[in-house]
């Protein structure tokens, strides 16, 4: 018999009742992250069925998706139409009511750890190797960077976890992604994952849990690993995982919810077993050598429509492809380099952490954002915001003419007032360039924090290698 993959090990550890032909497995969830947008109907289901939340202690609640990125010192600020529209304000208030009624601790306004769901889990040490972690948000794959199994669920399933701490699941297939080579200066983790999605397609991982492996991955810090696992869903994968190692443990040690004292040593011993056995096999394997990788930029309306920054957009005669490039107002056979930019957005669960903010600051330091560009920098959490300010990054950003805002999902999905206007082009460090994602008629170009910063200075899509 062959050995087990990392995914097999985490799966096996959480099966309450095994699957059979007639029924899926009853599968236990160790951490459920809840936010204001995908939970109200689930809390209503609990009320209708008169059910309590089974394990309030395994919930992590915050507000991020529709929250303003200007200061909210008092909830009455939400009544100001310049700060929030009435519908998101109502949703935010409902979240507070739901958490109070069901006994869930909420990291709300004024809390040091309010922020993007996939930023605060790792930040407070609740995200740990070997845990199963779900959230009503597809980028839950981010937590896989710690050797956890993280995946996105719908609102009905949010209700299932609230009520039973379990989901009904069929086991996914496994896929190894082997990444080798050393990154060139100015090229970063975001470029790796964009290149991978370009290679395997937006459905290349459908039905699979990816494990990212290889020397390149081992050399990445946790912020970079999170960027990679975060976008697993953009390849259609159920989840993305990386085996924990000393880098993981060093990041976690001393965080609020991480095990302390002797418990820490016991946990680390257990976590060290969380790696794929040498004799295990995967259902699918892909390899990517990133030695010569250039910065990547998207040109179309899904993340697989991506090209190296100096290369021309390919010419493909296909209805969906033509619809996408017409929407983007770009031309086949021409590179994205030099395209005029209106907005630069640095933020989202993909790229809003300290590594990202430092990369941006390094390029912006002493420079000015071009006069035709509005640059917004939105940290992933309030804690990150104060840490960046301690490091003096806010001074660099504002001196360059960028806006330094409060934590939240912000312009990644335009649920609050941070939206693109019709036809505006945004170089964005987020994860989705879908039509209208950042605002109706808006055009999104996905890129690394380095490319975003370089483009902000140039006023056009620019190669970060010219700015380092």
């Amino acid at each position, binding site marked *: 018999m062959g050995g087990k993959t990392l995914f097999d090990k985490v799966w096996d550890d959480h099966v309450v009742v095994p699957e059979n032909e007639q029924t899926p497995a009853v599968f236990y969830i160790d951490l459920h992250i809840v936010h204001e947008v995908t939970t109200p109907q689930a809390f209503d289901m609990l009320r209708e069925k008169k059910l309590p939340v089974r394990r309030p202690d395994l919930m992590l609640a915050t507000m991020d998706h529709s929250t303003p990125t200007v200061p909210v010192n008092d909830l009455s600020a939400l009544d100001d139409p310049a700060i929030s529209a009435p519908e998101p304000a109502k949703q935010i208030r409902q979240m507070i009511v739901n958490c109070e009624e069901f006994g869930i601790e909420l990291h709300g306004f004024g809390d040091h750890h309010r922020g993007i769901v996939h930023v605060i889990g790792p930040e407070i040490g609740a995200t740990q190797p070997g845990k199963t972690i779900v959230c009503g948000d597809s980028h839950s794959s981010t937590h896989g960077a710690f050797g956890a199994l993280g995946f996105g669920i719908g609102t009905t399933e949010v209700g299932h976890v609230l*009520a039973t701490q379990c989901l009904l699941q069929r086991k996914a297939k496994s896929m190894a992604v082997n990444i080798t080579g050393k990154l060139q200066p100015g090229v970063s983790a975001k470029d790796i994952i964009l290149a991978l999605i370009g290679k395997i397609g937006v459905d290349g991982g459908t039905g699979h849990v990816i494990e990212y492996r290889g020397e390149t991955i081992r050399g990445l810090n946790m912020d970079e690993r999170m960027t990679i696992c975060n976008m697993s869903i953009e390849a259609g994968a159920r989840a993305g995982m990386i085996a924990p190692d000393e880098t993981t443990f060093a990041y976690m040690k001393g965080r609020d919810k991480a095990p302390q004292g002797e418990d820490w040593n016991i946990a680390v011993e257990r976590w060290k077993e969380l790696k794929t056995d040498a004799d295990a096999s995967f259902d699918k394997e892909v390899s990517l050598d990133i030695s010569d990788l250039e910065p990547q930029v998207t040109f179309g309306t899904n993340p697989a429509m991506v090209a190296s920054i100096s290369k021309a957009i390919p010419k493909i005669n296909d209805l969906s492809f033509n619809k996408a490039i017409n929407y983007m107002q770009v031309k086949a056979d021409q590179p994205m380099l030099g395209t005029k930019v209106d907005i630069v957005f640095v933020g989202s669960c993909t790229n809003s952490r300290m590594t990202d903010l430092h990369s941006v600051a390094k390029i912006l330091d002493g420079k000015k954002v071009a006069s035709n560009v509005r640059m917004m920098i939105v940290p992933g959490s309030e804690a990150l915001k104060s840490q960046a300010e301690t490091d003096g990054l806010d001074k660099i950003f504002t001196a360059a003419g960028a806006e330094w805002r409060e934590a939240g999902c912000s312009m990644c999905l335009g649920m609050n007032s941070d939206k693109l206007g019709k036809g505006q082009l945004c170089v964005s460090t987020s994860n989705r360039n879908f039509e209208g994602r950042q605002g109706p008629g808006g055009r999104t170009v996905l890129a690394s924090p380095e490319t975003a910063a370089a483009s902000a200075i140039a006023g056009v899509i620019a190669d970060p290698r010219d700015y380092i």
Partner: protein
Amino acid sequence: MEKLTKLTSKTTVLPIDDVDTDQIIPARFLTTTTREGIGKALFADWRFDAQGNTIKDFPLNAPGIAECKFLVAGRNFGCGSSREHAPWSLVDFGIRAVISSEIADIFRNNSLKNGLVPVIVDDDTHQWLLANPGAEVTVDVEARELRLPTGKTVTFPIDNFARHCILEGIDQTGFLMQNVDNIGRFENNRSWQP
């Protein structure tokens, strides 16, 4: 959830690949705290222009759309965001099955919990359906079959348990609740605690 055993209806065809859930329902409509009237937001930015006028040549705006209970979509329908508002809006609009050669994982999972049948067919059948909008087809959940007006019948995969729930019109929470003793035992017997 409304039960569904077998249904015959016309198809409407959206021949675009990789349609993401942001298109099915844009994020600005997710600020609702209920499901009421969510069908109005279905494909909002493809059905209506910025002024709110109907875009006439969009398939879901065609006359007689109310008779079309099945949506034939391009490959990899429903990719992207996990928002369950996507199947909610399709069901509220009147769609009962989505037919494609490939349907994204989370969307498919969410659809099954709302009585929206994800029907995955082979490429040849898919091409025929894309080329024949308005064809009258039968989705038979009981038999796991899709029947075309040409006489061709193809089977489609559907998880036994999800099929049972759709046939009976029951939600899955009840089944999970029957397992509370198993869940309690699991929690007590773990070698580590989260």
